[in-house]
């Protein structure tokens, strides 16, 4: 069906791909219930929907990881069955997943040509492979990525570029990008958009999935909105559809990014709970001073790679500082010891929630109590009833949904997984909470909830440090903002005395070239 290309006349000339009535069932769940999607050559088609709306299932059907139970898929007007990933690839469908599927120990070039290696008589052609890889990377605007470097040593952003290069190394006609901007900073997103535009000019169709509505406004041509496995709107023109309308379609209610009110009390009094002096991690950042009082939220803004995450990981003890001191309530923490930090009342919600923050295949309650086991045990023996009760109380107070602490964490949405991480530290009654990208992978509706939660934690006397790539988030949430550039704090001041464009200027200065 793929081979004989010229037989039928396309039904509708402009649609490259048409999906209609797609149904996909999983045991117990109807993941897709009649999804419609049509994608035209040369357009950027945005796919919107909350977590669990069925976006990922849909793209897995497109890349033939899943088979639909019902419905038909037309490719250039002819019905096709995407029976295997190879069949999808043969049509020219490439997918770049949120969790990148690269082989860390192979080189950049080897990853790009993985599965379609350039070879002659069975011998790989190293020179040609590397040369071609360099061309692709150049085309993507990243000539600085070495084709011979092993992928595991690249930053997440660079790894994504490699994934893009892999898609381009094949004859791609439909490129699916699943939240590509999640690992990218501002400049890199611009670059990504430039690449996408170049591709669409060449007639490639792009399906773009993102939580960031402002991005969709920037790059998208048309929009399809999924909710609860159904298409609630399809083919909306981006310029004619207000953002509030999109949010309404996605959530069934209209919401904006609502940041909670800052506390009125003068937060500049009292001794700092967290006091960092001259913290340094050689080669990454140096001379970082930071003090946070009880009830205060301090935001760290900066580009990915500026050292934001490294700063909080270092003061948490997850990395060993090369110089400087970290004090919690006046007591100096041992360098490079997470155990000491946790004992002193510091908690971290890490950036890579799934791999660093959670035990995905364990129950919610176990994830919540993992840092507090001592409290539920006597002589090492766990009182699992008390443990469950303790976990349930916090989970309920944070409104983790669905309720029930015996459920596996893997089955929760991003926002609820984040709540589980917060619940862990809430249960521990920590004094200092470090949050690295707290709303990454969290859908719009749940974000507001997470923001309110962070504020209420601060109001209860916790000193909070927030790292975020979204300037809006840092400014909206924090009382005080530190801007980090190339491992140095370049600005510190109250959040309400600085605006987004000023922060972006500070962040970009010296990077502009």
């Amino acid at each position, binding site marked *: 069906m793929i081979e004989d290309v010229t037989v039928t006349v396309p039904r509708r000339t402009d649609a490259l791909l048409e999906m209609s009535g797609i149904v996909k069932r999983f*045991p*117990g769940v109807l993941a897709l219930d009649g999804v419609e999607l049509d994608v035209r050559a040369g357009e950027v088609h945005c796919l919107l929907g909350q977590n669990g709306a069925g976006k*990922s*299932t849909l793209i897995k059907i497109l890349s033939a990881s899943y088979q639909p139970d019902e419905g038909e898929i037309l490719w250039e007007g002819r019905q096709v069955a995407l029976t295997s990933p190879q069949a999808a690839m043969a049509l020219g469908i490439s997918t770049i997943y949120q969790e990148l599927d690269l082989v860390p120990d192979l080189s950049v070039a080897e990853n790009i040509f993985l599965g379609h290696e350039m070879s002659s008589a069975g011998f790989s052609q190293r020179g040609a492979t590397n040369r071609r890889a360099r061309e692709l990377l150049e085309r993507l605007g990243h000539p600085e990525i070495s084709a011979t470097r092993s992928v595991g040593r690249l930053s997440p952003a660079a790894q994504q570029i490699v994934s893009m290069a892999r898609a381009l190394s094949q004859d791609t006609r439909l490129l699916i990008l699943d939240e590509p901007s999640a690992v990218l900073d501002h400049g890199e997103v611009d670059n990504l958009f430039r690449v996408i535009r170049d591709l669409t000019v060449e007639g490639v169709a792009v399906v773009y999935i993102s939580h960031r509505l402002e991005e969709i406004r920037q790059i998208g041509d048309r929009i399809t909105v999924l909710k609860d496995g159904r298409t609630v709107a399809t083919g909306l023109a981006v310029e004619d559809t207000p953002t509030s309308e999109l949010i309404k379609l996605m959530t069934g209610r209209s919401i904006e990014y609502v940041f909670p009110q800052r506390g009125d009390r003068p937060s500049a009094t009292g001794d700092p709970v967290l006091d960092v002096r001259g913290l340094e991690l050689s080669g990454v950042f140096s001379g970082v001073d930071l003090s946070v009082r009880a009830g205060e939220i301090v935001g760290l803004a900066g580009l990915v790679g500026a050292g934001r995450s490294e700063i909080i990981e270092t003061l948490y003890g997850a990395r060993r500082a090369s110089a400087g001191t970290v004090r919690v309530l006046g007591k100096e923490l041992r360098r490079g010891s997470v155990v000491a930090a946790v004992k002193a009342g510091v908690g971290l919600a890490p950036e890579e929630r799934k791999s*660093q923050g959670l035990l995905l295949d364990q129950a919610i309650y176990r994830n919540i109590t*993992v*840092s507090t086991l001592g409290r539920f045990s006597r002589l090492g023996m766990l009182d699992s009833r008390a443990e469950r009760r303790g976990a349930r109380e916090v989970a309920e107070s944070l409104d983790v*949904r669905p309720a029930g602490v015996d459920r596996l964490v893997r089955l929760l949405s991003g926002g609820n997984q984040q709540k589980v991480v917060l619940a862990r530290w809430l249960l521990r009654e920590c004094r200092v909470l470090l949050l690295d990208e707290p709303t990454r992978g969290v859908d719009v509706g749940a974000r507001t909830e997470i923001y309110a939660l962070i504020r209420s934690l601060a109001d209860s006397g916790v000193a909070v440090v927030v790292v975020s790539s979204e300037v809006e988030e840092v400014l909206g949430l924090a009382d005080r903002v530190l801007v980090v550039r190339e491992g140095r704090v370049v600005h510190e001041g109250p959040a309400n005395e600085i605006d987004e464009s000023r922060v972006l200027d500070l962040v970009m200065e010296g990077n502009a070239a």
Partner: protein
Amino acid sequence: MSDQSTNPGTSRAPDVGAVENPVAPTGDTVEVEQAAARTEASTSSGGLMSGPFGRNLGLVVALLLICIAGVITAGDRFASVDNVMTILRYGSTIGVVSIGMTFVITGGGIDLSVGAILALSSVWATTFATQNMAEDTHWVIMVIAALAVGAGCGLINGVVIAYGKVVPFITTLAMLAAARGLAEIISERKTQIVRVDGFKDFFSSEPGGIPLIVILFALVSLLGWVVFNRTTFGRRTLAVGGSPEAARLAGINVNRHTVMLYVLVGVCCGLAALMLVSRTSTGSSTHGGLYELEAIAAVVIGGTLLSGGRGTIVGTVIGVLIFATLTNVFTLNNQDTSTQAVAKGLIIVVAVLLQQRLARRSTST
């Protein structure tokens, strides 16, 4: 960080909110979160009961089949109290090692040196010097020697793995070579006969008609189960094996815990050495040959995930019994050890294939 979804048995969960136990889809629209809430009841009860229970049931059936084969081929020679005790006595030494191995594997490691540590412990506990000292003071000296040697080897393994960051496979492979070599040096490759009567009498006693070493195995299994399922140590083992990075960032001292896991398996080897010394009345550098493979096989057949993060003591015990019974049936039918080895190899593969299929069904449906 290894992607959990590539582990055999942990099936890839689709992005939709819930994929657990079967719930009949009602109506045409199933709201995902609601569906998730509905499956919750069956997850909390069914997930805990039916999953591991179903797996263990499969193992019990396999054990029964082997027993039936035994009865058919060997009749009363198989189905006698004496023979059952023989099976249990045989399974006890490897069983104690396997309990320790369950902890290490669940904690994300592996120990290839168990057989060698066992040999070294058996030799150390039965040297001329140790036995002299034991005769002069108390036979408990031999017990202390064996347990201390086991703990010491485990400590070395653990420290090199946790703080030296050498992968467990290599570290324990080195220990395998070194410990058995040391056992050969100490014993001069001679079999050391046990002559301390107190030791012999104690370990060969049969309180209530049950051999002491079988009782020891039962106690170790029970203790292992409690520690595994009911203590902070067990919980941390699951966390460390499931995601060392997440465990570390949650404030668990992962390095220290890793050391403790290897010390634990080392002590188990020391105890198993004592049981084997008592059974054979000798200490020898050849004791415990291929125990590492038998123990790992029993653990994996039992349902413990080789990549860590999930384990079962009950499964391990049944896995040990399956192997011990199988060996017995073969021996009663005068099959040589080579045939046994082939059969064991087949059983390992078939059992793991079945396990994976069952696990996939229990987690994805």
